[in-house]
């Protein structure tokens, strides 16, 4: 009874605060929404700091803080000399196996490094956008087979994460990992390889239905000769492979090369609309509003594809802040894993179990399922991944019991070697997750005596489905909230 009265008083107070005290402060719930959507989880302290800001102020602070480089030092191998692909062919079976194991180890380190960056960065928005572009220009280590090239691409994505999309698109066309992934490294004039030409239109700029098969064939000719140096792994232009003839792409005719095609694509208004709609689905809800997306696309074009003006338009829009869109998105596995660690101040020494968890739940960074990236949305949740999520949460908040979370083994290392590394990883999980345990006492202290309904507002983006016990201890309350279906939303 008492708690009902308290809840009523609290509700009235939160309702009045924005009007009476600070006309436009975003408040606790607003700050939580902003920080969770633009980053990965947020602590009570971080949310409290943003709560008093006005909408524009808060967004400007996030945009001013973006980075172009990571703050965590990358693994050492990224600076080692490039290992040319052709060397593999001359190796003995044994050497090749050793090489494969080393690559598997390195790509694990690379993933752990990125998750560490997501946790420790001063700008979670930078990592959110880096991951967004990774999903947009999806490239997988499983085909590229070079953690070094994957790292270089990741550095490019971060550099332009809140930079310029046109710059990024041109650079991606010449990015060695992409050249390998979509086979353009082998695209020659005699019989062009259409893979990159198709995906650059279908997935990177225009979207399906806004070009013809003929445009693809012609564009493939324009991209002939964009390749990589076999010794250094750097971009190289092979003149003898390039088709210097005349091409017609989307109504433009000339002796076009790859950059001309990319400029042609950037000149189409559809490109800005396509990106703006994808940004809506990333930040707002699964169902873009056509009129609002057109407005953002206009802003994006006017700004010559600068990303920040687009983000400002998105993050200050009424659509972003609308109550109807709170809790409308399903957390990705990275949201769930990294977000949980950040929100509850859990700082594991070894992030490989976290990497493994993300992969098992369907989002293995540096290894998207295909060039379209992760489907996301409702598709994150099926019976296997939902149970895997619950198990991960159970492990963190109970901190005991054997790890059995092997819902969907990441398909790396290579097929056939599955049983060995799989068992190895499982053992590592069993040992390695000890420091992932939620510390209820420390967490309670960090709230400085605030508790009650505030905990639900910190932990959930959407009201709990199950009944909550208002009189429970802080840590018991948290355990009930993270097990609620609403914990899967953001």
């Amino acid at each position: 009874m008492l708690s009902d009265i308290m809840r009523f008083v609290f509700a009235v107070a939160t309702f009045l605060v924005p009007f009476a005290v600070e006309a436009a402060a975003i408040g606790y719930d607003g700050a939580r929404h902003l920080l969770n959507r633009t980053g990965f989880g947020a602590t009570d302290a971080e949310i409290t700091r943003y709560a008093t800001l006005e909408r524009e102020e808060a967004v400007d602070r996030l945009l001013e803080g973006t980075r172009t480089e990571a703050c965590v030092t990358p693994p050492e191998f990224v600076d080692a000399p490039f290992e040319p692909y052709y060397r593999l062919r001359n190796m003995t079976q044994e050497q090749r196996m050793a090489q494969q194991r080393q690559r598997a180890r390195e790509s694990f380190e690379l993933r752990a490094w990125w998750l560490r960056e997501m946790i420790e960065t001063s700008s979670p928005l930078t990592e959110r956008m880096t991951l967004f572009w990774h999903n947009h220009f999806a490239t997988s280590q499983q085909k590229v087979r070079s953690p070094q090239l994957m790292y270089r691409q990741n550095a490019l994505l971060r550099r332009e994460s809140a930079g310029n999309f046109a710059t990024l698109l041109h650079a991606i066309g010449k990015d060695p990992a992409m050249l390998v992934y979509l086979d353009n490294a082998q695209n020659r004039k005699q019989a062009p390889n259409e893979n990159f030409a198709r995906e650059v239109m279908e997935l990177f700029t225009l979207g399906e239905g806004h070009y013809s098969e003929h445009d693809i064939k012609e564009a493939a000719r324009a991209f002939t000769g964009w390749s990589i140096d076999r010794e250094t792994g750097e971009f190289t232009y092979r003149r003898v492979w390039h088709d210097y003839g005349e091409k017609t792409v989307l109504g433009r005719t000339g002796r076009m090369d790859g950059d001309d095609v990319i400029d042609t694509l950037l000149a189409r208004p559809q490109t800005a609309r396509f990106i703006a709609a994808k940004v809506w689905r990333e930040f707002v809800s699964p169902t873009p509003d056509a009129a609002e997306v057109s407005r953002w696309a206009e802003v994006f074009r006017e700004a010559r594809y600068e990303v920040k003006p687009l983000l400002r338009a998105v993050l200050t829009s009424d659509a972003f802040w609308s109550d109807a869109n709170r809790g409308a998105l399903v957390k990705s596995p990275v949201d769930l894993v990294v977000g949980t660690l950040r929100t509850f101040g859990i700082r594991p020494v070894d992030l490989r179990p976290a990497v493994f968890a993300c992969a098992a739940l369907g989002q293995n960074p540096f290894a998207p399922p295909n060039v379209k990236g992760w489907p996301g949305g409702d598709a994150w949740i099926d019976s296997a991944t939902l149970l895997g999520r619950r198990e991960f949460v159970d492990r963190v908040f109970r901190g005991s019991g054997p790890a059995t979370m092997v819902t969907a083994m990441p398909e790396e290392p290579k097929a056939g070697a599955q049983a060995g590394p799989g068992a190895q990883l499982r053992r590592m999980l069993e040992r390695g997750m000890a420091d992932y345990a939620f510390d209820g006492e420390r967490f309670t202290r960090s709230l400085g005596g605030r508790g009650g309904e505030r905990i639900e507002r910190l932990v959930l983006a959407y009201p709990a489905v199950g009944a909550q016990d208002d009189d429970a201890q802080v840590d018991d309350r948290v355990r009930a909230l993270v097990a609620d279906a609403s914990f899967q939303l953001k």
Partner: protein
Amino acid sequence: MTFARRDFLRLAALAPFAGSRAFAAAMEAAPRRLLILVELRGGNDGLNTVIPYANPAYASLRPRIGIARDQVVKLTETTGLHPSLEKLRARWEARELAIVQGVGYPRPNLSHFRSIEIWDTASSSDEYLDAGWLARAFAVSPSPRTFAADGVVVGAGSMGPLAGNSVRAIALANPAQFLRNARFARDQGETRNPALAHILRVEGDVRASAQKITAGHKFETTFPGGPFGNAVGTAAQLAANESGVSVVRLSLGSFDTHANQQGTHANLLRQLAEGIDALRAALVETGRWNTTVIATYAEFGRRARENQSGGTDHGTASSHLVLGGGVKGGLYGAFPALDRLDGEGNLPHAVDFRGYYATFLERCWGIDSKVVLGGRFDTLPIL
């Protein structure tokens, strides 16, 4: 006894009013058929899977990646299999392997994502449907309530043909683990938030299926290693389950071989053949081989002419394999018309993929395919 049932089914199928009441009655008498679909992710190269080795155009289109005539697993005077599919030769000789050539659809779309959407929803090229074709089928004609689920998707990936709200479908990696974790699923109530509603529905499906799924059947058969081998083992477990399921979907890939195709393709097809071979052995062990149908599908085949990178670009019509103790082995569809490629250099289709689907809907479960597929498509006499 199994033979008698099979013969009766065949007789029923041959009867003049097959597809009507007598057929349905026959279906009722037999145990419900299990369909195991294998998606060849990324678009499998049909011409290097089922090889028109006697056609001189084949060698000239593929000077670099074509399979040498003496390597082909020869089935007939004209047609053979990729050497990695050697293990399937015995099924062909037992007349339990049907090869359907030229499966595709009019006005083909060459995007992976759009084309697999067309296949998953069984739509026309220019039609956009939400629910998967099997989800729609089970909405019309659900599996018996005693079944653990209409369908199970094994491993990661989308729900594909089983995506939709009106179907009892679950995804799992293996049944033992599924049961161990099912304790995390709780009955949590209802909501108007669409994302949350999806989560609660999945939770409900888990709870319902967990009561009926069993695990831990011990097989004499050894399953191959690797993710596909594991998936095949899971399919065998599901087939051994007394409560039953109607469909299991497996997937193997990536078959998107734009460059240096030979090694990758050979390896994938070997996994396919070894997996199917083990699956058959396990199904024979549990007495389910005669009531199970294994069938492949993919978003498209690949370009007839190889590209300069030793690979093949996206194509159209392709060959698919259907296996089972109740399958009538042989060649179906039409030989690849290498002399009638379209303007893009692609093969014309001979069998509409919706006819391929209709065959399973009608012959496996007696479901009226017209209602599900929005039209009448010719079925194949393979079952």
